[in-house]
């Protein structure tokens, strides 16, 4: 079987569908190739996995028409309280609080569970003309010709298009087949991720403690009595804790968490994510573009990778749609070069923000740490203030993709 579309997207996670929607709504035809089997109709249960969406990400979701289907399920982050934590003693008194009332944009971010976001993407893709979703399909080969790009699937299907986009994660097969190398290293840290039920209501507050072993973030989930936990420890400690039974796990968490939200119980599955960096040496190749973790695997926790990925989506959709409206070849080097110039510095600075920048700027300056949190909503991944610092030092002005300001293309 042969099939044709303007854009072929490999990866049906979150960035792939977001890009597909943005492009199809602007009139392009898109095929999304997802290795996972066709999603089951029944909604997945609560597993505690959630994203902290930055305001710009919310705006992109609004622009592509997904926000209205998840709006009822988000928990706005109204306040961020930070504190220095001491192991064994729980948090010190909160010494700085940010309130959403202080900024005009409203909430600092939104917590949203994966199951709701993914379901909304699926529903939107099915309702949009011009999107073909191929589930349970694995790409076997890809070939670039003068006229376009084609991929062969394990099922024997062949797809041709003008642009191939890899939204297939840090182990991106699209990047590998295009001959794009990666660099990366681990941090010797692992994030423990789960959800807890707590006796007292969180009132939309996100808490973050800076522990010597790594930060602990408590992120509010809808309903008032559930929070998502992102808890970084050294690899050895994390492995030990993950091996404990639920009761033991909770006992390990309690002293770190503290007693301010009352009694705690585990409420979600327990996940672990080793913290590591994985950066593609370039984000584009002839007729190929990389998006999200395929380009820059940063910090696989609480959706900071998603915020960054959606910026890629916004930028790539914009250059591709602009090229299409000028009559240019959407897979040619001109729009792809523009995408890479637009995203690479930002993404690389952020990725290295985890590492090099941490060494350049003192990690002990609480103002820096807070600025970082304000910029991105929550968690410890994105050093917003320092990032702005570097961008200015580099003479770059942050030009936000149109979709990330909530406007359609």
């Amino acid at each position, binding site marked *: 079987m042969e099939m044709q579309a303007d854009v072929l997207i490999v990866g049906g996670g979150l960035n792939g569908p977001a890009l597909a929607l943005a492009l199809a709504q602007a*009139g392009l035809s898109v095929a999304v190739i997802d290795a996972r089997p066709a999603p089951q109709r029944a909604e997945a249960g609560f597993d505690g996995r959630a994203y902290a969406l930055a305001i710009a990400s919310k705006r992109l979701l609004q622009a592509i028409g997904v926000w209205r289907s998840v709006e009822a399920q988000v928990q706005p982050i109204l306040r961020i309280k930070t504190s220095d934590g001491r192991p064994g003693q729980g948090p010190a008194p909160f010494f700085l609080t940010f309130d959403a009332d202080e900024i005009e944009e409203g909430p600092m971010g939104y917590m949203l569970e994966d199951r709701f976001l993914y379901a909304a993407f699926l529903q939107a893709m099915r309702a949009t003309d011009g999107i073909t979703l191929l589930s349970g399909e694995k790409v076997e080969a890809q070939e670039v010709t*003068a006229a376009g790009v084609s991929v062969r699937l394990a099922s024997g299907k062949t797809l041709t298009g003008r642009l191939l986009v890899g939204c297939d994660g840090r182990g991106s097969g699209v990047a590998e087949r295009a001959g794009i190398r990666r660099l990366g290293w681990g941090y010797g840290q692992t994030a423990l991720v789960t959800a807890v039920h707590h006796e007292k209501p969180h009132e939309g507050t996100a808490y973050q403690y800076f522990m010597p072993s790594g930060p602990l973030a408590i992120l509010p989930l809808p309903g008032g009595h559930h929070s998502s936990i992102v808890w970084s420890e050294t690899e050895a400690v994390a492995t030990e804790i993950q091996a404990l039974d639920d009761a033991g796990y909770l006992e390990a968490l309690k002293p770190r968490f503290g007693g301010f939200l009352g009694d705690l119980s585990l409420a979600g599955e327990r996940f672990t994510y080793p913290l590591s960096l994985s950066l593609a040496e370039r984000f584009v190749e002839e007729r190929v573009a990389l998006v999200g973790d395929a380009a820059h695997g940063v910090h696989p926790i609480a959706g900071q990778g998603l915020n960054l990925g959606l910026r890629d989506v916004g930028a790539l959709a914009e250059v591709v749609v602009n090229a299409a*409206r*000028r*009559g*240019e*070849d959407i897979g040619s080097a*001109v729009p792809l*070069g523009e995408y890479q110039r637009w995203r690479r510095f930002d993404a690389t600075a952020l990725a290295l923000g985890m590492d090099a920048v941490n060494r350049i700027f003192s990690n002990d300056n609480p103002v820096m740490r807070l600025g970082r949190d304000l910029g991105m909503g929550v968690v410890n991944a994105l050093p917003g203030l320092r990032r702005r610092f570097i961008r200015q030092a580099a003479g770059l002005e942050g030009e936000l993709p149109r979709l990330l300001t909530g406007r359609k293309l």
Partner: protein
Amino acid sequence: MSDAMHANTAPGTGTVDAAEVAKFEAMAAEWWDPNGKFKPLHNMNPCRLDYITRQIAAEFGRDLTTQQPFAGLRLLDIGCGGGLLSEPMARLGATVVGADAAPRNIPVAKLHAEQSGLTIDYRNTTAEALAEAGERFDVVLNMEVVEHVSDPLAYLTACHDLLKPGGLMICSTLNRNPKSFAMAIVGAEYVMRWLPKGTHDWQKFITPDELYDLIRRAGLDPVDRKGMVFNPITWRWSISDRDLSVNYVTASLRR
């Protein structure tokens, strides 16, 4: 592709042998390499296309967010070269004739259009010859040509004759002043080596007022002019309302 396939598939190459076709293919690759010999044109192309597409859309009431917005429009691209403007216009749905006085550009452009899956009528001819043959168009693209012709008024008169009543001509060229001399000749040809030395003769550059005057004498009605400005920091071209000091572009109508 094998050589045999080239000989069979290259359109309009007639009796041209495989070695010739291979040469054309290399030239097409060169024309379309955004980092190659024609890098300055590729750099400028998005900006030129933005201007062209918006002018056509405004004049003919077309919506650029739709598929093939220029369907039904007959368009002539004078000095089409490798087809850097003809192909986008064809992709937007226009019926395109690409004309180039240099015979060797034609098979090159044809070959690339075929690779792109586009139908474009490329011809080795001139504006004057097309006008004489009675060809008529809704749109005439006259981009970076007028500074190369020996008699601009005769040439622009031919462009006028090529337009249907209500037709639109887009004409871009280079201003004549010390800055354009420094930028276009010293900068682009000698320092950056973007263009072969001798590409431009500064004496033939035309100021915007002179061009407006020539366009009027040719019987057309100039309706818009804008600058195209290169930013050496971002390496991007943009349209400017005020700065027409080096590159500029105009729109004119045949009433």
